């Protein structure tokens, strides 16, 4: 049998094809031109040319969040690679499976400050799950396979592979050999919860009088939404989601008490504060949830389920830690409840719900729609957006007030519908993420909800949308300022608006048109619903909807700094 030899570049593309990669998001440059040449000669892997490498990472990220597959990026060495850094950090903070292939100068030049050389493995070290330096052409296929395995198993995350140019060029060649099975003696993520911990957890849960389930992004990543719903209903427990966990249970479910944390609902934060047992599922007690950790739920027994042991007892001490994949652990919990013939204590349960419903009745997620001058309230735009899409759209958010309004006013019925940069808070994430989602689901409504600040951080991608016909609907809540910055300046910095406005905004309608898209401006409330419906009726072209909203609106509720989880401003000047 004759052996077929390939260049390193061909091995890269063959490996991607063997791993069933459909799209590769990237930008060419000197050190990766051989890979681009190999891509040109095949049909399995489609390359999507962005306008900035940061956008390639966010596109791959959006694609990964919507599909659950690994998002794949290709960038050249030096500036191409460093432009990926923000996107890698974004994926790292939100545990998104991603593989970034970066070019590197030829092996013999590494360390010489060669043209377009940066140590990308070094630069990215604190923000990757793992990284590989390729130094032998024959290793390429297995390194790529390992990278995919590491990126997508356990707690997912980004993996960087550095490929020096001499390994890719003609001159060196190797066989395409891929191990049948990936084995790593140093990497074996735990999957099942320890049975003794499961028993302890169930004991605590069943003895609780005031149980709250607090679930996060782990539920989405593990595709555990149905199991979660079964557990919630079995226990008839109130459930709150983190920003990353929205859609983990339907936003319309009777037991859902809203998002918790900094801009969470009163009932969610109150329920947490008054709980005697908190069951945390795939959430990590982030500082945007806990507020002051010293005052955090002092009377609660905390059961913490997470795949990553470092997340447990990092900020809040867990009384009953359970390490394992959250879907498997929920199954174990359900089985144990079944085995112990668990029945709900109706009296306790009703008392608890009665209390929660009192908090619910305060309607903390509300705003005053009637204002002088007919200014449009941003919350109203989200509600209109919900109506126009029947609640079924993929909503990809940028970062700022619009993000919080979307989280509060668009109840997500399904997991993976809500796509946002929760951990890193990356402005400029929304548009490329929406593009990645649209690649995966061309027939669905895909919204980029953004603001006049965020959208300008990756606006060049309007050009990519034209090239690949990606008709996302961009809804920009234009308040002529950096709204969240301005809100903090109003509340904490004596109203001094230091560098928080945009005094030279472009005409977004004309801008969209100049890229060949459709631009619509909405500046009065009476045209809002009609024009939004119009925008969503256009299927084959990108529509940029520039909505001029009330620039003075703040996001409420809002936790009071240094306070307990439930110490909040309900609206301007009103404490909970």
């Amino acid at each position, binding site marked *: 049998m004759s052996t077929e030899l390939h260049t390193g570049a061909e091995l890269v593309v063959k490996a991607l094809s063997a791993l069933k990669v459909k799209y590769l998001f990237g930008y060419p440059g000197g050190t990766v031109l051989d890979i681009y040449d190999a891509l040109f000669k095949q049909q399995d892997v489609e390359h999507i040319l962005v306008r900035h490498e940061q956008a390639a990472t966010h596109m791959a990220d959006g694609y990964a969040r919507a599909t659950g597959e690994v998002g794949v990026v290709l960038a050249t060495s030096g500036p191409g690679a460093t432009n990926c850094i923000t996107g890698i950090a974004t994926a790292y903070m939100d545990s998104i499976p991603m593989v970034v292939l970066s070019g590197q100068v030829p092996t013999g030049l590494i360390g010489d400050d060669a043209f377009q050389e940066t140590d990308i*493995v*070094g630069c990215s*070290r*604190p923000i990757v*799950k*793992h*990284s590989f*330096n390729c*130094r032998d052409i024959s290793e390429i296929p297995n390194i790529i396979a390992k990278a995919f395995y*590491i990126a997508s198993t356990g707690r997912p995350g980004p993996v960087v592979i550095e490929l020096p140019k001499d390994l890719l060029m003609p001159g060196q060649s190797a066989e395409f050999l891929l191990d049948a099975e990936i084995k*790593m*003696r*140093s*990497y074996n993520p735990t999957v099942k919860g320890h049975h003794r911990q499961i028993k302890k957890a169930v004991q605590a849960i069943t003895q609780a009088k005031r149980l709250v389930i607090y679930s996060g992004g782990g539920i989405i990543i593990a595709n555990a939404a149905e199991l979660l719903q079964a557990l919630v209903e079995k226990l008839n427990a109130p459930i709150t989601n983190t920003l990353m966990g929205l859609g983990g249970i339907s936003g319309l479910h009777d037991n859902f008490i809203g998002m918790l944390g900094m801009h969470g609902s009163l009932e969610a934060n109150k329920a947490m504060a008054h709980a005697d047992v908190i069951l945390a599922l795939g959430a990590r007690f982030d500082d945007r949830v806990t507020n002051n950790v010293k005052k955090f739920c002092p009377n609660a027994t905390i059961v913490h389920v997470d795949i*990553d*042991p*470092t997340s447990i*007892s*990092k900020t809040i001490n867990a009384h009953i830690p359970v390490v394992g994949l959250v879907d498997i652990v929920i199954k174990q919990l359900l089985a144990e409840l079944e085995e112990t013939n668990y029945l709900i204590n109706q009296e306790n349960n009703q008392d608890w719900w009665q209390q929660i419903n009192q908090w619910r009745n305060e309607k903390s997620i509300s705003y005053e729609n009637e204002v002088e001058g007919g200014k449009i309230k941003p919350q109203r735009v989200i509600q209109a957006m919900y109506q126009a899409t029947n609640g079924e759209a993929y909503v990809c958010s940028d970062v700022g007030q619009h993000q919080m309004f979307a989280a509060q006013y668009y109840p997500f019925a399904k997991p993976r519908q809500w796509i946002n940069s929760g951990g890193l808070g990356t402005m400029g994430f929304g548009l490329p993420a929406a593009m990645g989602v649209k690649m995966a689901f061309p027939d669905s409504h895909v919204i980029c909800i953004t603001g006049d600040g965020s959208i300008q951080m990756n606006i060049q991608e309007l050009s990519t949308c034209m090239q690949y016909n990606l008709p996302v609907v961009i809804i920009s809540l234009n308040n002529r300022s950096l709204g969240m910055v301005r809100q903090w300046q109003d509340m904490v910095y004596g109203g001094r608006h230091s560098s928080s406005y945009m005094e030279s905004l472009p005409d977004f309608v004309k801008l969209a048109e100049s890229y060949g898209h459709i631009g619509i401006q909405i500046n009065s409330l009476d045209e809002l619903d009609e024009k939004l419906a119009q925008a969503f009726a256009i299927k084959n072209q990108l529509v940029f909807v520039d909505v001029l909203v009330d620039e003075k609106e703040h996001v409420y509720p809002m936790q009071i700094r240094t306070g307990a989880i439930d110490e909040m401003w309900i609206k301007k000047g009103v404490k909970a």
Partner: protein
Amino acid sequence: MRRILAILLENEAGSLSRIVGLFSQRAFNIVSLTVAPTEDASLSRITIATEGDDKILEQIVKQVNKLIDVLKITDLTERQHVERELLLIKVLAMNDKSRTEVKRITDIFRGAIIDIGKQVYTIQLTGDADKLNAFINTLANETEIIESVRSGCVGIARGEKALRAK
């Protein structure tokens, strides 16, 4: 509280930098660090002396374990263990009195004079950190210290307990 951590990890390019990077990134403290390949050349063993309370130590152990290259980590200070550090120290030994005194102190501490110059002695000493500190202080009272270097500590569990790949 001072702790000694022993780490077994893949002997690959970049694996040491991941450990060091992790400590600086998460504001953990490194008092000393030593690293060398083991008898199995595919593995390295690192010993880190660190300081921190139980909560910090728990995070350090978990975070190090989370690194893909790491096979095992253990806190040697949790159990009975042996700890050693190597000191090489060069001191002034200009006249008979100081030469005699330096030799006497070295003998008492069971060190060895391993090199001599016209006016200096170089001494080698192994022991735990306390012993090395005591030796340095005693020498400093008798003569002038020109230069010293410490290896950082290495450690191993007492008895049957062992840190192995399998």
